[in-house]
C-alpha cells in the first residue's frame, strides 16, 4: 500500500519526525548545553517542513488509502500550525533563561506536537484523527508541566492530563459508536452511511465525537481546563497552547463536521450554534473579573473559539472559509499579544502576570504599550484593525446562510467582550504608573511583536490573498 505518492503527501510529517528524532539524540548526548542550538535547528526543521508543504499537494488528496488527506485545507492549517509553533519556540529562550530552565526538550516536544497537529488536520479517518490527537496531547501534557520545580506548572500539567484523557475517552467512545452504527471509520464511509438518515446510535456517536472535539478547542461547556492550564503553564507554552493546537483542533472539528458528518448537518448545526453562543457569552462574562493576564487570555481564547464556530455553524463553503480566516487572524493576534505578555517583566527581569502591573505602561514603554493596545483593540473587534475583519467574515457567512438571529446575538455579545479588552487598554494608558518594568524587551520578542502588529494594522491589504487561500481550503472539503 505504501507508494511514493503517499510518502510525498506526508513529507512534512516525515521531515518533522526525522528532525525531531535526530534532535532528541543530540539533546540526549549533548545535555542541556545544546538547548540554544536545538532551538534554532527546530525552527529550521519547521521551516523546511513548511516548504515541503508545497510538494505534498502534488499527487491528489488521498494518501495511504484515504487515511490521510493532503489537500488545500490541510496545507493551509499546517502552514499556520508550523508558523505558530516556530513562534512559540523562538519566544521561549528568554523566558526560560531567567530560571535557567531552558532545556532542549522544549523545542523537541513542540516538534512532536506539530507532527500530531499535522496529522489531525490531514486525517481522513477516525483512527488517524485519534492518533494525531493523542500525539499532540501527550506532548502538550509534558509541555504544560515543563517547569518541574514550579508547583503551578506541575498542577497545570496534571489537570490537563486528567481532563484531556477524559475527553479523549469521550471522543473514542463516540468514534466507536459511529463505527458500530455506520460500519466505517473512514470519513467518507461515515458520510455515506449517514446519508441515508441519521439513526439514534449515530446521533449519540456524533454528540460524543463533538463533545470530545469541543474539549480540544476549549469550547463551553468543555472549557474548564483552559484557565488553569493557561495560567499554570510557562508563558511560552501558553503561547503555544493558545495558537497552534487551537488551529489544529478547529481544523479537525471543521473537517470532521463537513467531511464525515456532513449529511447530518442539521443535527450538529444546533450543537455548534449552542456551543458557539455559550462560548462567546461565557468567555466574555467570565473574563471581566480576572486579574491575571494569562487567565484572561484563556477566557479570551474561549470567546474567540465561539466566534470561529459561528462560521462552522453556517455550514457553507463561505462559512468554513470564514472560520479558517478567523483562525489565521486569531493566531497572529494571539502570538502578538503573548509576545507582549512575555515582555511583562519587573525591573529585575522576573516575569509578572497581573493586569494591575501594566498600569502606566504607556509612559515607560511607548512601543510596547502601543502594540498591546493594537492587539487588544483588535481582539475586541474594533475596526480598522484586522481582528474586526475576522469577526466580520464569520458573521457575514452566518447572515448569508440565513442565520441572521445568530449573527445579531453573537455580535451583540461581542460588545461584552470588548469591555475587558478595554480594561487592559485603560490600565496601560489611563492609569498612573506603579511599578517599574524592565527597560527594554528582547530582540526576538520585538521582531515578532512588530511583525504581528504590522499585519494587524495593515491586514486589509492581505484580504485578496487571505480570501483566496481560505476559499481554496474550504472548497477542498466540499
Amino acid at each position: 500500500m505504501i507508494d511514493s505518492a503517499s510518502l510525498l503527501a506526508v513529507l512534512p510529517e516525515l521531515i518533522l519526525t526525522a528532525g525531531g528524532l535526530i534532535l532528541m539524540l543530540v539533546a540526549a548526548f549533548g545535555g542541556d548545553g545544546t538547548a540554544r542550538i536545538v532551538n534554532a535547528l527546530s525552527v529550521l526543521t519547521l521551516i523546511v517542513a513548511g516548504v515541503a508543504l508545497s510538494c505534498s499537494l502534488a499527487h491528489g488528496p488521498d494518501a495511504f488509502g484515504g487515511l490521510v488527506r493532503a489537500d488545500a485545507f490541510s496545507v493551509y492549517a499546517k502552514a499556520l500550525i508550523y508558523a505558530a509553533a516556530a513562534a512559540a519556540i523562538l519566544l521561549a529562550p528568554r523566558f526560560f533563561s531567567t530560571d535557567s530552565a531552558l532545556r532542549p526538550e522544549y523545542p523537541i516536544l513542540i516538534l512532536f506536537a506539530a507532527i500530531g497537529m499535522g496529522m489531525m488536520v490531514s486525517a481522513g479517518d477516525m483512527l488517524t484523527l485519534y492518533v494525531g490527537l493523542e500525539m499532540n496531547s501527550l506532548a502538550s501534557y509534558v509541555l504544560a508541566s515543563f517547569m518541574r520545580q514550579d508547583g503551578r506548572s506541575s498542577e497545570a500539567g496534571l489537570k490537563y492530563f486528567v481532563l484531556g484523557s477524559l475527553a479523549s475517552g469521550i471522543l473514542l467512545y463516540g468514534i466507536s459508536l459511529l463505527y458500530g452504527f455506520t460500519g466505517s471509520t473512514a470519513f467518507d464511509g461515515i458520510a455515506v452511511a449517514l446519508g441515508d438518515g441519521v439513526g439514534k446510535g449515530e446521533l449519540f456517536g456524533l454528540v460524543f465525537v463533538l463533545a470530545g472535539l469541543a474539549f480540544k478547542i476549549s469550547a463551553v461547556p468543555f472549557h474548564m481546563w483552559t484557565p488553569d492550564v493557561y495560567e499554570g503553564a510557562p508563558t511560552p507554552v501558553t503561547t503555544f497552547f493558545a495558537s497552534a493546537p487551537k488551529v489544529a483542533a478547529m481544523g479537525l472539528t471543521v473537517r470532521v463536521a463537513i467531511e464525515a458528518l456532513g449529511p447530518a448537518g442539521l443535527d450538529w448545526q444546533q450543537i455548534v450554534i449552542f456551543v458557539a453562543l455559550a462560548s462567546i457569552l461565557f468567555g466574555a462574562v467570565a473574563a471581566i473579573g480576572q486579574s491575571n493576564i494569562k487567565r484572561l487570555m484563556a477566557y479570551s481564547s474561549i470567546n474567540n473559539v465561539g466566534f470561529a464556530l459561528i462560521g462552522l455553524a453556517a455550514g457553507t463553503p463561505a462559512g468554513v472559509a470564514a472560520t479558517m480566516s478567523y483562525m489565521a487572524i486569531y493566531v497572529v493576534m494571539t502570538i502578538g499579544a503573548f509576545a507582549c505578555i512575555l515582555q511583562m517583566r519587573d525591573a529585575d527581569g522576573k516575569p509578572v502576570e497581573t493586569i494591575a502591573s501594566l498600569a502606566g505602561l504607556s509612559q515607560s514603554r511607548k512601543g510596547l504599550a502601543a502594540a498591546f493596545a493594537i492587539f487588544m483593540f483588535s481582539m475586541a473587534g474594533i475596526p480598522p484593525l484586522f481582528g474586526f475583519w475576522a469577526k466580520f467574515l464569520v458573521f457575514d457567512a452566518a447572515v448569508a446562510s440565513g442565520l441572521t438571529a445568530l449573527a445579531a446575538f453573537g455580535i451583540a455579545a461581542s460588545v461584552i467582550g470588548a469591555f475587558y479588552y478595554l480594561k487592559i487598554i485603560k490600565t496601560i494608558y489611563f492609569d498612573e504608573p506603579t511599578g517599574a518594568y524592565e527597560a527594554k524587551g528582547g530582540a526576538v520578542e520585538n521582531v515578532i511583536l512588530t511583525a504581528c502588529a504590522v499585519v494587524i494594522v495593515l491586514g486589509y491589504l492581505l484580504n485578496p490573498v487571505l480570501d483566496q487561500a481560505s476559499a481554496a481550503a474550504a472548497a477542498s472539503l466540499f
Partner: protein
Amino acid sequence: MDGFPILSLMMAVPMAGAIACLFVGANSARWIALIATLVDFVLGMALWANFDQSGSGAQWQFQEYAPIFGKFAWALGIDGIALMLIALTVFLMPICIGASWNAINKRVGEYMAAFLFMEVLMIGVFTAQDLYLFYIMFEAGLIPMYLIIGIWGGADRIYASYKFFLYTLFGSVLMLIAMMWMVHEAGTTEIPVLMAYNFDPHVQTWLFLAFFASFAVKMPMWPVHTWLPDAHVQAPTAGSVILAGVLLKMGGYGFIRFSLPMFPEASAQLAPLVWGLSMVAVVYTSLVALVQSDMKKLIAYSSVAHMAIVTVGLFAFNQAGIEGAMMVMLGHGLVAGALFLCVGVIYDRLHTREIARYGGLSINMPRYAVLFLFFTMASVGLPGTSNFVGEFLALMGIYQASTWVALVCTTGIILGAAYMLYLYRRICYGEQVNADAAAMPDLSGREIWLLAPIAAVVLWMGVYPESFLSPMRPDIRALEARLAPAAPAGDSKIKMGAPKPAGEAHHEEVSAHGEAH
C-alpha cells in the same frame, strides 16, 4: 481636478501627520498638527471651489475606486451634503489644535496623533462610497476618542470613556448585521447603488431599526443620549469641540445617507417614533439644561435638544425640512464648538466648570463677553445667525408633516433662549462675587483667533445661507424625490396661494399655511 485623488490626499495628509507626531517632541508635534490640519483646510476649500454645484452634472463627484480589499473597495466620492460636512470638519480641526496648544501639556505627541487620526476617520466617514468602508471609518472613530477622553479628560474620565465606547459600539454592531444582509440581498457594497435599491418594505422595518440603533446613539437621541453629557464634561476642550462639532453629525449624516434613501417606506412608517422621541428630547433635555450647574453639561444637553430639531427636520420628508436639518447640523457644529471653546477659555483660567464660581465677567473680560454673547445668541437661534436659518427651515418643514410636532418643537426655541440666557447672565452679568474670577485676564490673541473665524462663518451662514445651501440643494431634491412615494400625508393641508399682482398682495393676505389647531 479630474482624476486627481484629492479625497485620498485629504486623508493621507493628517495620517502622515499623525504618524509623525508619535515620534517627535511636544512642540514639533503641535506645529506638525497645525500645519497638517491647515493643509487639509486648504485642500477642503479647493474641493469646495471645484465642486460642481449646478446639479446638472453627476451627483457623485471626485470619485475614486480601488478594489484592493477583497470583499470591499476603497471607494470614495462626495455629494453636496458630504462636501458641507467635510468643510465643517476641516474648518474645525485647526481650531481644535489651536485650542489644545497650551491646555494640553502631557503626552502632546500622542494627543495630536489621536486628533489627526480622528480627522482621517471623519473625512473617511463622509467620503466613503462603500458600505463596509463606511462602517470601518465610522467605528474606528471610537479608538482615538476613547483615548482622548480617557487620557486627557477630567476627574471622571475613565467612567466617561467606557460609557462612550460601549454605548456607541453596541449601537453600531447591529447596523453591521443589517449591512451584511443588505449586501447579500442587493449584491453590491456600493452606497449609490444601494441608495436606489428597493428593499422589501417588511424587511425595511428591521433594517431601519438596526441602523436607527446606531445613528440614534451617535446623534444622540433621547433616551440613549446619556453618554453624551458624561463624555462632554470629561473630555478636554478640543475633544468636546470635535465631539459636538463633527462626531454628532455622523448620526445625522447616517440618517440622510442611509436610513432615508435606503428604507423610505420604513422611514415613513416609523417617522412617528422619531418625532415622538424628538419631541421628548426637545422639551425634556431643554428643561434638564436649565437646572445644570456645570457649564459643559448644560451645553451638552442643549446639543441633544438641537439634534432633536435635526431629526424632526430630516423626518419631515420635504426639502425645507431636510435643508433645515442640514443647516442646523452645520450651524450647531460651529456654535456648539464655539461655546465649548468659550467654556474652555475660562476653564483654562480657573479650572472649574461650576457656573456659580464665575459672575460679572463682562467687567473684566469685555471681549470675551461680546463673543460669548454672540454665540449664546446664535445658539438661541437669533435671526442673522446660522442656527436661525436651520431651525426655521426645519420647523417649517415639519409643520407640513405634522403641526403638533412643530408646535412642541418650537417650544424648544423658547426654552433654548431660557437656558442660554440664564447661563450667560450667571457667568457674565451680575455682581463679581468671586475674587479669583474677577481677576481673570481677557482673551489672548490666540483665543481671539480661535473664536473670531467661527463667529464670521456663523454670521455668514445666517446672512447669506445660500452659499451653504446651494451645493446641497440638488442632492436634497433628489432625496425628496426618492422619499416622495412613501412620505406621510401630513396634517397641515397647505394650500399654495396663487401669486397676486404686486399692488393687491398686502390687501388680501393669502393663507400660506393652515391652522395649528
